[in-house]
């Protein structure tokens, strides 16, 4: 290219990159909106999920119908009444509660049938019936799960008292890792994904679009800076900023809300760094195509924030989504991050799960970076 040696080229590149990163860092520090998104928002999200939004059903009102008066049936009924998850109204017939269930005055009906004691005594699987409102699947599944929990506890206590092997009661499920079923434990990894999406995609696309709007991009492009240097100059600062925001989230969750952290920091940062590749790539691509702050923010919210919220398994179970939507989630990077992060918090390092997730996210990131670089050729039109 020129007569300059390779080493001079490299120092020139490094110096230009350093200058761009320093410039970006100064702008971040001086721009209230970056600080707001990167450091105030994590506080809000974590507090919101910590206190405000709870998917737990503490003291849910249910109707309890006991169809027989045997001691074991009464004993189980007493366990329901004593449960701190339920507020029990007694009845003699499930029909008494049907209307209340429809109106939402009770969230479920538990029926201990007349065959309960006989089945138990006959060592046949004894069943109790739980009626829930399928229109509210979250609440319904919690009532169901808590009911199982009550029954399981009761059976275990009874087994130890009678010194006999636990009898077959139709409750098989156990809750690993989150026996208290505290939904905040599940929500924290989601909150982290949201914050990193906002910093990586929304903030990044906004700042580049702003450079186009203010005419500074044109001035930069007329200098010897290369397109790759321009992109790296944006990626590095926001990568660091997003990791800082993530660290803040984790710190708040662990130290303030006592969310367990059973995995390693290596796994946490490795997964987060891999997730930031597609997040930043998406931000770069959006701003390179739109060059307009308003449009960039709309696109970033639609294509980054909302999928991370709705299609990542954060709020809604992916397995219960309709087929086409389930396939759609395959291209949402947060979908790969969230289950892995949940493991980091609640279970520990499961590298057989993390490595494929990291590989998929990094692959998505590389594709997006390549697209962004192609659209950021050093020409204006």
């Amino acid at each position, binding site marked *: *290219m*020129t007569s300059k040696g390779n080493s001079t080229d490299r120092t*020139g590149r490094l*110096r*230009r990159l*350093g*200058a*761009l990163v*320093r*410039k970006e860092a*100064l*702008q971040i520090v*001086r*721009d209230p909106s970056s600080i707001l998104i990167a450091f105030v928002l994590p506080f809000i999200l974590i507090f919101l999920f910590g206190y405000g939004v709870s998917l737990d059903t503490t003291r849910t009102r249910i109707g309890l119908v006991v169809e027989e008066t045997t001691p074991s049936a009464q004993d189980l009924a007493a366990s329901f009444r004593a449960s701190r998850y339920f507020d029990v109204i007694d009845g003699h017939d499930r029909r008494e509660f049907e209307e209340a269930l429809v109106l939402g005055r009770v969230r479920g009906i538990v029926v201990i049938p007349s065959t309960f004691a006989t089945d138990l005594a006959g060592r046949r699987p004894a069943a109790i019936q739980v009626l829930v409102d399928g229109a509210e699947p979250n609440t319904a599944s919690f009532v169901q799960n808590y009911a199982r929990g009550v029954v399981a506890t009761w059976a275990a206590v009874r087994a130890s008292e009678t010194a006999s092997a636990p009898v077959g009661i139709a409750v098989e499920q156990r809750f690993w890792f989150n026996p208290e079923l505290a939904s905040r434990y599940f929500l924290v990894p989601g909150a982290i994904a949201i914050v990193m999406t906002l910093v990586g995609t929304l903030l990044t696309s906004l700042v580049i679009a702003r450079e186009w709007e*203010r*005419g*500074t991009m*044109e*001035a*930069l*492009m*007329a*200098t*010897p*800076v*290369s397109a790759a240097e321009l992109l790296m100059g944006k990626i590095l600062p926001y990568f660091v900023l997003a990791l800082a925001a993530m660290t803040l989230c984790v710190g708040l969750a662990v130290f303030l809300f006592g969310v367990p952290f059973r995995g390693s920091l290596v796994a946490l940062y490795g997964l987060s760094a891999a997730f930031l590749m597609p997040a930043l790539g998406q931000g770069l691509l959006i701003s390179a195509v739109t060059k307009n702050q308003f449009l960039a923010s709309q696109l970033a919210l639609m294509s980054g924030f909302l999928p991370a919220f709705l299609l990542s398994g954060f709020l809604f179970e992916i397995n219960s989504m309709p087929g086409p939507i389930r396939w759609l989630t395959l291209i949402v990077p947060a979908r790969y991050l969230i289950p892995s992060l949940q493991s980091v918090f609640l279970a520990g390092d499961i590298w057989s799960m993390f490595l494929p997730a990291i590989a998929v996210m990094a692959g998505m990131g590389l594709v997006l970076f390549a697209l962004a670089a192609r659209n950021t050729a*050093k*020409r*204006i*039109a």
Partner: protein
Amino acid sequence: MAEPVVRIENVTMRFGPQAPALRGVSCVVEGGITGLVGPDGAGKTTLIRLMTGLLLPDEGRLSVLGLDTRGDMAPVQAAIGYMPQRFGLYEDLSVAENLDLYADLRGLASSERAEVFERLLSFTDLRRFTGRLAGRLSGGMKQKLGLACALLTKPRLLLLDEPSVGVDPVSRRDLWAMVRELAGDGIGVLWSTAYLDEAEACDRVLLLNAGELLFSGPPADLTRQVDGRVFRLTGVGRGRRAVLAEVLGGRGIVDGVIQGEAIRLVVAEGAQERDAAITEARSRAGVGAEVRPTPPRFEDAFIDMLGGGPGGRSQLAEASPMRAAGGDEAVIEARGLTKRFGDFTAADDISFSIPRGQIFGLLGPNGAGKSTTFKMLCGLLKPTSGEGRVAGFDLRRESAEARNQLGYMAQKFSLYGDLSVDQNLAFFAGAYGLAGPRRRERIALMKEVFALSPQSGISAKDLPLGFKQRLALACAVMHDPAALFLDEPTSGVDPVTRREFWTHINGLVEKGVTVLVTTHFMDEAEYCDRIALIYRGRAIALGSPDALRASVACPERPDPTMEDAFIALIERSRLVEAA
């Protein structure tokens, strides 16, 4: 140097399906200062971007510093200094941080840095402000910083895209002196401008119109084309606006503008046509009028080259009712207007009054307090003390009544960019309370007068600059106001469109409308009946353009221009303050 700095061969550039932005342009840029002039949308910015390599031509080729722009531009870009229209500064970085950034990007060695910064900071007089954020600098200071950033590694080609838009005459003169000094060092400078007095001072000029190169060469060569065709019509007195409108309608008149009490005319080529035009003009001007030849300026030749000015007829004024002359009471009045922001006094005890049917100009450097005074008078800003009156209404107590009497055109484009031309007109008609047949009538008139009908469905933000300004003026005069407030209405607008503007304003004033205007164009100051020069919050001079010019005349400068007067009066005020 055998090879010119830039060689452009047969370049054509298209954006979308419209007429090409540039059509078969061939020219060269050499050392010294080359002026790039032409109306809005002529293709000036496109041509500059082509030279930076940020755009590639559809046809033809450009070579910059001997290298084709289609190839690797990095070595060329290292040798180019480019200042885009908005200076390319980071407003949230300080002066020093901006310089550091561009020094690193342009590869200025650290060993030279201290010395280069020192030289540029004293050159631009920015040393006192190194810690200040660029966003908090005045327009003139931003412009100097933009220039400093483009000059860090001494470029071989300096490209300046309208560096002087919205900048006051003092800063403009400073900038010009700096660039002149650089050109002396052998740097090739391309200076795009809407100010034709700047173009006149360039070594060579490229004149673009609608994508075509009309002229390339020393400005004096172009000016020579109107030799013997430029005249001053004097002795027309108070009726000069009406006379100008009439004279422009005559045969053989190419261009005409007001210069204080006189009228400047450019007549058509050919001895016969010239004599006929002069005789006609003299007879229209009435008894006592005199016509004398005057040396031509570049602007005369520029308008001539573009086929003449827009004529003197204002359909807008013709459709406006004559306002009954109601004595001599003032329509716009400032009484001791003072505005303080904290311990900073932006406007200090400013008083003047404007009688019906006059144009009053507020002039002054950036940040002197013009806009503050202006905003207090149209009720947008509450004075700390003093009062403003419009059409007899106190702006403080009867602001609604006062505002119904005034039309306001803001400095920045203040229409709804996402609404179409029609929707903007309909909205402002509603905002001014026009209804029924009168509303339809006025909207139809505005569209006809400003030739907006073909554009009626286009979003306002997509209009060319000249049409945006027309639409803004249409919205301001829609309700036929008694007083018109124009805040830099022609900033960045080319000379032809500016003439059209003033034709309307002159016509309205003849019908009894009163106008308050701010401007950085000194030739527009000539249209005013009286001028207040605002400096550091105070009115340091007040009088007619002729009187202000006469007040600074001296043996070395017997016939000062308006710009000379502006600068001399400010210098004088500085000396008084220092003493």
